[in-house]
Structures are given as C-alpha cells and as structure tokens.
C-alpha cells in the first residue's frame, strides 16, 4: 500500500513539475473529504484513517491518469480499480467489511459537475446540451462500475490462486 502510494506520488510529481503546492493541497483535501463522508455514514473510528488513505490513493490515481492525457473515463476506471483493490486489502487487514472503505473513497469520483450541468441545462431549456451531459454522467458511472468489477475479479482470482497453493 505504502509502496503503491509512493509510486503514484513519484509519477504524479513528474507530471506536475513545479506545481508541488497544488499536489499537497489536493492530497490534504481528498483525505479530509473521504474522512468527512466517512463520518456522515458512521463508519467505525478505527477505520477512519485507513479509509482516508484509500481515498487519497484513488484521487491521486485519477489525477495521474488525467495528467497523462488518459481521458476522463479511463481516469475514473483506474481510480475505481485502485480504490477497489486497496479497500479489499484494508478489509483483510482490519477484518472489517469492504464497503466501509470504498463508499467514502468513491465520493470524489462521483460525476457531480456533469450532473449539475445536465440539471442546469434542462432547467434553462437547453435540452441537447443536457442530454450530452447526462450521457457523460452515465458513462462515468459505468467506468467506475467497471473499475470495481475488475478489482473484484483480480482479488477473487488472486485469493483462489493463494488458496490452491
């Protein structure tokens, strides 16, 4: 987990040469946002800290892929994959259900901006732009779902191999 995080940070700082202050602000913000949502859905005190780090990992992955011109969909899918895998890891380590970690960490990825634009365009009467925004929302949600699906697949195969050997 820590190695993964360090690796992500390295890649990230390579893309953002000279903008280190912004990266630190993004990391602090994603940590706080994840913990805040964790408090709203009442996850156990013990899980709060690790949950915050899972959220940071997901958001950093998102930013890394976006900075490398990967596109919004790929960025969301990769971030969801990272969140899924690290929350499975945390669930195993702390012996708690997995949803404690992936629900709060997912919150920064929710397509709030696009959904907002869709609602706004519908309200103004700009239906065509609104529908294009809605399609974007649906595709981002699908990308996040794919990321989770792949993470579960990877984890299941991995544990099956471990049990066999």
């Amino acid at each position, binding site marked *: 987990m820590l190695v993964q995080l360090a690796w992500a940070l390295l890649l990230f700082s390579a893309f953002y040469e000279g903008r280190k202050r912004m990266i630190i602000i993004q990391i602090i*913000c994603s940590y706080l946002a994840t913990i*805040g949502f964790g*408090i709203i859905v009442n*996850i156990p005190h013990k899980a709060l800290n690790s949950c915050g780090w899972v959220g940071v990992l997901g958001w950093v992955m998102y930013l890394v892929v976006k900075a490398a011109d990967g596109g919004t969909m790929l960025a969301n899918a990769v971030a969801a994959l990272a969140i899924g895998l690290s929350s499975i890891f945390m669930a195993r380590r702390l012996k708690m259900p997995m*949803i*404690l970690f*992936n629900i709060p960490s997912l*919150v920064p990825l929710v397509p709030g901006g696009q959904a907002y634009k869709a609602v706004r365009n519908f309200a103004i009467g700009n239906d065509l732009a609104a529908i294009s925004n809605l399609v974007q929302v649906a595709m981002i949600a699908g990308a996040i779902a794919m990321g989770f*699906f792949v993470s579960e697949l990877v984890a299941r195969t991995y544990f099956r191999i471990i049990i066999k050997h």
Partner: protein
Amino acid sequence: MTKNDLIIETILMAGKIMIENGADMARVDDTLTRIARNAGIDNPKIFETTTGILMSIPEQSSAQVEPIQKRTIDLEKVSLVNQNSRAFQDGQISLEEFRNNLVKLNISTPFFSFWLQLIAAVVVSVTLMIMYGGSWHDMIATAFAGGFGYSCYYLINNRLNIRFVSEFLASFLIGVIAVLFVRLQWGTQIGMITIGGVMPLVPGVPITNAVRDVFAGHFLSGMARAMEALLSACAIGMGIAFVFRFL
C-alpha cells in the same frame, strides 16, 4: 423455544440489521449462510432482497419471513454484526449471546453527534469544491451552503422521516444560498458552490451497492437500490432546477 427457532430468529435479525443499515447483498448472503453453517445447519435456504428476507431449514416444513421497511445508513452496525459473526465462528460466544448482542447493538450503537456530522458535511463540501477546481474566494459560501443543506436534510429525515422530500428541500436551500451569496458579491461561481454544497447528500451508498449487487447476481436487490439512488439524485436535481427556473 427450540434450537432451530433460535437459529432462525438470530439469522433473520442479523440479516435485517445488515440490510437496514446499508450492507450489500453478497456480504449479507455470505454472513447469514456462515452463521447458519456454524450453528449446525448444513443446507440453509436463505433468500434475501432489499425489502425482506425469507429463510427455511430443509428438515422443517415452515419458513420464516422478515419484512424490511426502513433503510438508513449506519455502517458501524454492519461492521459490528460482522464482528459478532466472526466471534461466533471462533466459538467465543454462544448462539444466545450472539442474539442478545444483536438486540443490544441494534438499539445502542453510538452515532457521531449531529455537530460532528455538520462539521464533516462542511469539510466535505469545501474540500471537494477546491478539488474540482473552485476558487478560494468561494470557501465561505460553500461552507454555508453545505452546512445549511445538510442540517435541513438531517432534521427533516430525523423528525418527519420523509426520504426524498428532505433531499429536495435541502438542495433547494443550497441553490438559494449559492445564488444569494453570488448576488451579494460574497462568492464568485454559483456552479462550484452548488456542487460542493450538494456533495454530502449524494447517494453514495445506494450507488455503490447497486453496482455490486448486480455484478454479484442479486438483480432484484440491485435494481431496488439503483431505483433508490436514482430517486435521490432526481430529488436533488429537481431542487436545483427549481432555483434556476425561478431565481
């Protein structure tokens, strides 16, 4: 009470607590089957959806039903049921103790206090607004929007117990506050303030669970959860659309 009755009662209670507080179906199925196996039933028949659980033991002729009417989110209870199930598996507690623990945790699990939740909601709003690229000048406006929005949502949910109305009114209030702050020159972007303020209300738990349920093969539950998430999202959208239409 015979032993089978006690087993069924415990399993149904555990399932009810888990589903009521936002666990996903694959997890519920796994936990309930495990409890039944550890209690000595080799082939338990359990069918669970978001709105009710059915359970029978093959040697008995009758089945038991447990309807689930309310659905809130309290992940600590889910985690506690899980812990108790593990302790039961390891033989640390007996079936009677397990049942008593379930009754106890269902009544007396501590929730974070309202003020802490309010602070958390403000933190979520402000940090997400910054992360999405909003300007630092909008921080105070977002904090107000998020705080008032969440208090409105919380109070209506707790006092009146109407689900979708609370989301509608809360997002309406957030929109009004955003417009007001920008008109008074205390904020710059209506969009960023509204997005930040709405974030604590986003139905994150139903969305995640819907996806996981569908992939795990629990289509009925997945569709029910997706419907719930969609209705919440529509209520939030309606509230904001109202503000744009008439202000």
